[in-house]
Every structure is written in C-alpha cells, then in structure tokens.
C-alpha cells in the first residue's frame, strides 16, 4: 500500500497551497507525516521524476508535481525515459511506457 501514501503525498501537495508552502520550508517534516519507504522518501527529497514514474505514480499526479517543480515539458518526458533506463520498467499503475522511449512529436524531435 506504500504507493498509495506516496501518491497521497503528491495529491495533497499538488492541490494545496499550504502544503506547497510547507514543502518549500520544511520538506523533511512534511515527509515524516506520510508512511513512505526510504526509496519513496528519497525520491521525493530529490524531486526524482524518473524514479517516481517507475514506482508507479499516476501520470496525472506526477505531471502536476513536475509543473510545480518548474520542469519544462520536454525535460519532463526525458526524465521519465531516464528513469526507465536507470531503474527498469514501471512497477505499478496504468501509466507504463509503451512506445519504447520514442518521441511522438515533431516539436520534440526538432529541439
């Protein structure tokens, strides 16, 4: 059930300005309030989009978190691909990578 708590952390962060303020001021204290594994806690501490993606965080939740971190769109896509390369396939959920890491837009290919 740990993925549940990981996603709940991000759900509450994404929708709550108070949680966002606490995130910026005292992330360790905020993380302590959730039942997270060391791997999950570490990924959140580092803002590790690739690992969070592989852990199975719902893409809609992860996408909003990446926007909160100020990550540009194409960088966000690359970070997920890098996560697959480093940690292997997505372990849970319905947001698995199915396209072999390819880009599907001319805009990204022409960067």
């Amino acid at each position, binding site marked *: 059930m740990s993925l549940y708590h990981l996603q*709940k952390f991000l759900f509450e962060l*994404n929708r709550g300005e108070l949680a966002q303020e606490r995130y910026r001021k005292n992330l360790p204290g905020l993380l302590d309030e959730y039942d997270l594994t060391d791997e999950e806690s570490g990924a959140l501490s580092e803002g590790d989009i690739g690992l969070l993606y592989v852990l199975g965080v719902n893409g809609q939740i992860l996408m*909003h978190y990446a926007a909160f971190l*100020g990550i540009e769109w194409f960088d966000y896509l690359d970070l997920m691909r890098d996560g697959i390369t480093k940690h292997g396939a997505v372990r849970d959920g319905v947001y698995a990578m*199915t396209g072999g890491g390819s*880009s*599907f837009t001319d805009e990204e290919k022409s960067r």
Partner: protein
Amino acid sequence: MSLVYSGVLSHAPGITGRAHLVENTAKRDEFYAALEKQRRDIVAAGTEALIVIAAEHFANFFMNNMPAFCIGIGDRYEGPIEDPEWLGIQKHSIPGAPDVGLRITREVMQTVDTAYAQEWKFDHGISVPLHFLTPNYDLPIIPVNINCQGPPLSPLHRSWAFGEALRRACDSIPEKIALVGTGGISHWPATPDSGKINEPWDRDFLDRLMRNDKQALLSYTDEETYRDAGQGGFEIRTFIAAAAAAAGKGDLKFYTAELPIFAVGCTVASFDIV
C-alpha cells in the same frame, strides 16, 4: 425541455500550455476556431448554466474516497490548481450554480447514486474548456465528474445511465442548461509516449459517437481500451455521457491527429437534442 446544448471537446493541458511550441500553427488555429464556434453556439442557445462533465485528474478526489460520479453544488470554484505559467491559464474564481446544481443532483439521485460537492478545485480538465467556452468566467458552472482515473473505474453503461439522468434532471427545471463532456479519445498523456495517438481507433469511436450508437459505444472493455487507446482512452466516459444526455445524432465539427504536441486527437462536436 431545458437541455439546450450538448457537445464534447478535448481538454488536454497542452492545448493552452504548449500552444507556443506548436509547429503546425494553421491546424492549431483551426482547432481554436472550432472551440470559439462552440462557445458561440452555447451562448446562442440562451445558456444560463453550463454543466462540464469532466474526467478530473486528482484535484479533488483520491483513492481514500473515490466517487464514481459527483456533481458540484458550490457557490464558487477555484482553478486551475496547476502552475499558471505551465498551463497557460491564470487562476480564477469561477461562479457556480448552487441552486440549479442542487435540483439537478436531487433528480439524478432518483436513478444514479451520485456524490455531490460544495468544494471543487478545477484542474486542466475543466479549466482548459472554460478558457475557450467562457473566457470571461461569467457563466455559472456546474462541474461534474466521472471517475476515469482511479481504477476500478465507473462502468461505461453506468456513465451512459448517468448521462441520461443528467438529461432528465435538466428537463425537470426551467433554466436553460448546456452540457459538455470533456475528455480525450486515444492518448497516452503524462507518459514518455505523450503525443501518441491511435487515429483509426479515434475515428472508429467518433463514428460510433456521431451515430449515437449506444450498443457500439458500450461494447468496449477497459482492457481493450487500455491496449488500443491508452489510459487516456478511459476518458471516453465523458463523451458517452454527453451522447446519452442528448440522445440525438452527433455533428463532428473538428477532429485532428495532426497536433500531437497537444497529446490528444483534438475534438469538437455537438449532438442533436431529441
């Protein structure tokens, strides 16, 4: 009859947030023009409140208590929750329609066990449609949600029943109500596959939708949809509910798979109200 308009449109965040990255600007602007035409059609119908049937993305509902269906009955709403620069839409306070929403909810409950909510934060799933359909944020909104995100999902046949219940509810009140279902067809959003679109699957679905063929629309299994249309394809529930509410044939105003930077086949359509 007080349902005066029923239609569908896409809501992907890239439609506003990545507008500046688009290479095919002619197609983008054609899409925007179709959305503007939809706005004018809604206004011309004398709309007093707009129901937005959305597939929300964890702005309000989570797996601690996930409703299959929910109707907003709040005075006002906030949105978008996303970073305004990222989405290309500034944060707004949006008027609700609490009295109308409450009466609609009571009638829907006669046949579908919907939840209701006096608080609701809009994410891109509602904020992008509103950006085009009521850019001055002066039209009262009744947000509605179908669970398309947290499996187990609302079954397709219940989404159809929910659309029919919304229709009965709209027809039971004197106010003129417009309704839009907003979702994607095939797409793999928020993954490295973003931009992948199964155009043949989209066109087959849209053919079923424009015929308003209930049996054909409800024949998909979630396993088939996930395989052929991605997890984003689960959002067909919102289109199906809008078709059920209208009961008439559809008129596809716009569709293109040529804007993959928006991560969805961009769609605008309306239905005959019969």
